[in-house]
């Protein structure tokens, strides 16, 4: 179902003007498109498997029998009765949107300082940013959980959201790489014009790095959207605060698993992300690159 989403905008943007002319070019065209199609199908096949499992009966799901004997489309309705998915959806949105917003506010200036300003200790700080991604999250969680708990914030999504307003290593790293590619001369020119660094950032760098910023925002959104470990640790005792990714836990018990429901929820959880990607890709696909504006 998700595989056939129309995508007119992007298709139109690509180089459709280049129609094949000679027989050799036609052959080329056929070859590369066959490969592309095959690739697309291979990538999509497991997702189709998820869809097929989601509409199977409980007795057929996760068996070697891959084609649904009966089509239980009502599974998609039933999962809403089994778990308060609308509430979870709202929480997921809240988490992902606030985290992304916070990331943008905190990481863009930091990335700018690392990419475009010159200061002592800059390289060490940059290495530390990369290093920060290398501590295993399972261990970091131990002292952090205690801290959030003493602030009385466990059982809410805040311990997951607040850090993004301060520091997100992955985003700073990615944004810095984007900004590095914008020629320094643009920034210097702005300075000569009397811009403060803040103005230079807002007026020059942000517009020029827009594709990079869009991509970073998308990755941040998707990461938080699929985050399982974080919500499990911080909100699992308050069902009202569960995110969509935790909903999977509703379909397993001590001695049973409802595979069809689990897969239906997986698809439902993927859906907003797919829609977001389809619409967001046009703002960055033609421009996420570290080489940015060519001189």
């Amino acid at each position, binding site marked *: 179902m998700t*595989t056939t989403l129309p995508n007119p*905008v992007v*298709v139109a943007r690509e180089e*459709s003007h280049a129609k*094949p002319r000679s027989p050799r070019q036609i052959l080329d*065209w056929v070859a*590369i*498109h066959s490969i592309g*199609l095959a*690739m*697309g199908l291979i*990538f999509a096949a*497991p997702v189709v*498997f*998820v869809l097929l499992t989601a509409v199977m009966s409980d007795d057929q799901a996760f068996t*070697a029998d*891959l084609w649904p004997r009966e089509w239980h489309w009502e599974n998609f309705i039933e999962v809403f009765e089994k778990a308060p998915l609308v509430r979870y959806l709202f929480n997921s949105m809240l988490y992902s949107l606030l985290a992304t917003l916070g990331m943008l506010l*905190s990481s863009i*200036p930091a990335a700018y*300082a690392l990419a475009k300003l*010159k*200061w002592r200790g800059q390289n060490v*700080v940059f*290495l530390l940013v*990369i*290093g*920060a*991604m290398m*501590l*295993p999250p*399972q*261990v970091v969680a*131990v002292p952090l959980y205690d801290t959030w708990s003493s602030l009385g914030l466990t059982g809410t999504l805040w311990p997951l959201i607040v850090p993004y*307003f*301060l*520091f997100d290593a992955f985003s700073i*790293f990615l944004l810095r*790489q984007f900004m*590095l*590619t914008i020629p*320094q001369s643009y920034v210097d020119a702005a300075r000569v014009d009397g811009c403060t660094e803040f103005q230079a950032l807002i007026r020059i760098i942000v517009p020029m790095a827009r594709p990079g910023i869009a*991509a970073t925002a998308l990755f941040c959104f*998707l990461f938080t959207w*699929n985050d*399982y470990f974080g919500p499990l640790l911080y909100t699992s005792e308050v069902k009202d605060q569960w995110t969509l990714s935790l909903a*999977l*836990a509703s379909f*397993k018990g001590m001695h049973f698993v409802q595979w069809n429901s689990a897969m239906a929820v*997986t698809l439902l959880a993927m859906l907003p992300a*797919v829609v977001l990607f389809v619409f967001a*890709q046009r703002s*960055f*696909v*033609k*421009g996420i*690159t*570290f*080489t940015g504006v*060519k*001189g």
Partner: protein
Amino acid sequence: MTATLERVDVRRTAPAKGRSRARARNRFTVLAFMAPAIIGFVLFFGYPLIATVIFSFTKYDLINPPEFIGLGNYTFMWGDKLFWTSIENTLWFVVVVTIARTVFALGVASVIARLKSGVGLIRTLCYLPSLAPPVAATLVFFMVLRPNGGPLNKVLDFFGVDSPLWFSDPSWAKPGVTAIMMWVCGDLMIIMLAAILDVPQEQYEAAELDGAGPIRRWWHITLPTISPVLLFGIVNSIILALQLFTQAIVAGSAATGSADPTGSTKNLGYPQNSLLTFPTFLYQTGFRYFDMGYAAAMATVLFVISFAVTIVLVNKMRKSSHAEEGGPGA
């Protein structure tokens, strides 16, 4: 102009004398821009790191206050068979996953870049798997690779080939997980695709005039131009491989017949500890065996090693891009 991880040379832009006011202002700006990041870094990285290092010298069962035991955890580590197994496995993943994922994402992106119609659809299809929650993605892959009755097996049967046993066979389990990591490489693929599309058309045209075929153009123009993206992909993949956790746990438990949609930790490492990655062993020690002190020692070792590797890598990238681009630019 370049797009590199290179050092911004302070001396090169040494201010003329009498610019101390500007310098002070600059310092203030840096501080203002970095302030949230510095606070966040200290709270969410510095503090846990110090806590972890401190815990690593203690016996800490997660409930009672840590008890100082000196180097006890580190000496135990030396003789711990499982610790070395997990190091070996994670090293394997760091090497293979990094190469496989980067090369594969680059390959897919290169094909998509050459498509003329249906680009949007195929791009979305290729990106789709990386949107799936990791547990679900792993389980789905497990079912697809299933040696008896799985779709891949049916295809292989048609050609009369015996399918490998994947996650049930210690020598195929890691390649199986690598396949999953390749299948969900969508984010990296998208970044590379954008970089390839951004290579200036004139460069290709010029090369074509010189008689360069598509492969030579790809090798001599595309690849060097997008090398900063490749480097990002490598660092990103290394981190992914170092933290390989969910996929290893889910694949292992599914192979013992006890898969569950949230990732059962009943059979960490199955089969024959071939999927016992460093993070899974660390988790097992800290939370299953209630030995957070030892887990912290492992985390410290992992951090020191990976940080050292990062420094080497970043320096190397810096040097190689200097060589390619002729010194620091921009």
